[in-house]
């Protein structure tokens, strides 16, 4: 996207988005849609500012972010370690991969009731569910990345006399890194979704619980403030992954 005149397009694109916000304001002002569930952007914004400054919206945001990040980190570490162990050995793959393929389409949220039965409505339960759900994308992507390493590279490694540890750290892991990062990106999305769902179900403090309670008490502006924050959270996490990918996978960009 390095066409000339990129900036004018960017500005125009922001103008269009601003136009949609104005349209939303106009619809809300004219009460074309019931204000019970569509407050104008002004009221949502005011609720957001009030919640962040006077209310405890910031605390909820931090709680959700912490859950999401911790669960995702645990899932990523476990997923990479397990995925490397499975992906690097064809024999291990033959035994384990079919079962993983069967479990892959299972919605991660379906284990929430099981987790509740095991761990109760606790923070440990929430963390477990997030880590479990975010594990799958990372695990499967890592297995794929490790099993798709160019065999010639292993011959090069053998000819150079790399130790097994060096082979994994210097050949397999970097070669699998694009897949692993793609899995971690998906895992982060899953982590956010599960954090919100668990907070709704288990009543743990956080944005998920906040938006649910706001809806139940018909505080639509508060609800939208929470949704906007969740959108921002999703946006920022995707930007963070983009940034990491660009730094770590610079060699790929150069290849194009």
């Amino acid at each position, binding site marked *: 996207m390095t066409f000339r005149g990129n900036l004018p397009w960017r500005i125009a694109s922001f103008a269009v988005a601003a136009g949609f916000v104005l349209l939303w304001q106009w619809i809300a002002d004219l009460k074309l849609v019931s204000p019970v569930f569509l407050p104008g952007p002004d009221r949502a914004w005011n609720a957001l500012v009030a919640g962040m400054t006077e209310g405890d919206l910031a605390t909820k945001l931090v709680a959700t972010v912490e859950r999401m990040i911790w669960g995702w980190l645990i899932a990523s570490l476990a997923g990479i370690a397990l995925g490397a162990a499975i992906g690097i050995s064809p024999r291990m793959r033959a035994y384990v991969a079919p079962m993983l393929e069967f*479990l892959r389409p299972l919605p991660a949220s379906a284990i929430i009731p099981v987790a509740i039965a095991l761990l109760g409505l606790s923070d440990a339960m929430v963390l477990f569910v997030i880590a479990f759900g975010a594990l799958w994308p990372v695990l499967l992507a890592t297995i794929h990345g490790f099993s798709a390493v160019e065999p010639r590279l292993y011959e090069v490694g053998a000819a150079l006399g790399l130790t097994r540890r060096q082979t994994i750290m210097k050949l397999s892991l970097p070669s699998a890194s694009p897949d692993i990062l793609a899995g971690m990106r998906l895992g982060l999305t899953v982590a956010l979704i599960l954090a919100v769902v668990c907070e709704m179900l288990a009543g743990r403090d956080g944005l998920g619980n906040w938006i649910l309670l706001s809806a139940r008490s018909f505080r639509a502006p508060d609800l939208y403030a929470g949704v906007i924050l969740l959108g921002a959270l999703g946006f920022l996490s995707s930007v963070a992954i983009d940034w990491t990918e660009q730094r770590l996978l610079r060699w790929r960009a150069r290849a194009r």
Partner: protein
Amino acid sequence: MRARGLLLPLLLLVAAELGMRLSGTQSMALAAPSDVFLSLLSAIGDGSLLVATRDTLTVAFAGLAIGTAVGLAFGILFGLVPPLNRLMEVTIEAIRPVPSVALIPIAMLALGFGYRMGIAIVAFACAFPMLILTRAAIAGIEPRLFEVARALRLSAMQRVFKIILPAAFPRIMVAFRLAAGIALVVAVTVEIAANPLGLGYGILIAQQALDPARMLAYLVWIGIVGYALNWALVGAQHGMFGRAGGAEARQ
């Protein structure tokens, strides 16, 4: 080779069975595989499981149909008209990252509980991947094909229906498969989080009724439904592109 893949699940099942039987555990979360199996049979027998499956699939498929139709239409439009795509970029990128489950409370207020709420959220979740991937599919068409179209003096409509859509079709199908997987996941998630119907609600009720065998039976069943759906879609894709687009369809 398949036998080796079955070994591990069988071992785990036997271990779970023996573990539950020998320890005589009375758990609120765990049950012996044989009890889970019996519970699954009884849930099928009394029809409750099938009703729940019907509800979940109704929501998933209706949401999928609406979401992919919208995503496909805008994806084609944005793919064919780059200026429009660039004008809408900020708007799309602002809405897309909103986690679909964040819409549950809004849908509760606007639509109340029931099919419509689930369908709306599933449609939202399916529309964006469909839009993005369709747009990419059209942008990724071999430029030589456009030259061919020009050389053949095809009209704009002919270009869309004879060149662009067929060329992008395999990748659009991949997008559809992805969206279908998302549809089931989101449908079940909405039911677990809020909506009192379908398989997600069933598993939650079984947990609250402290009936672990039934809860796990639902879990297994959800897994089977997910696997079957995925299997059917992969099969359909291979059937359609067995020869012309097999390589691309498998991506």
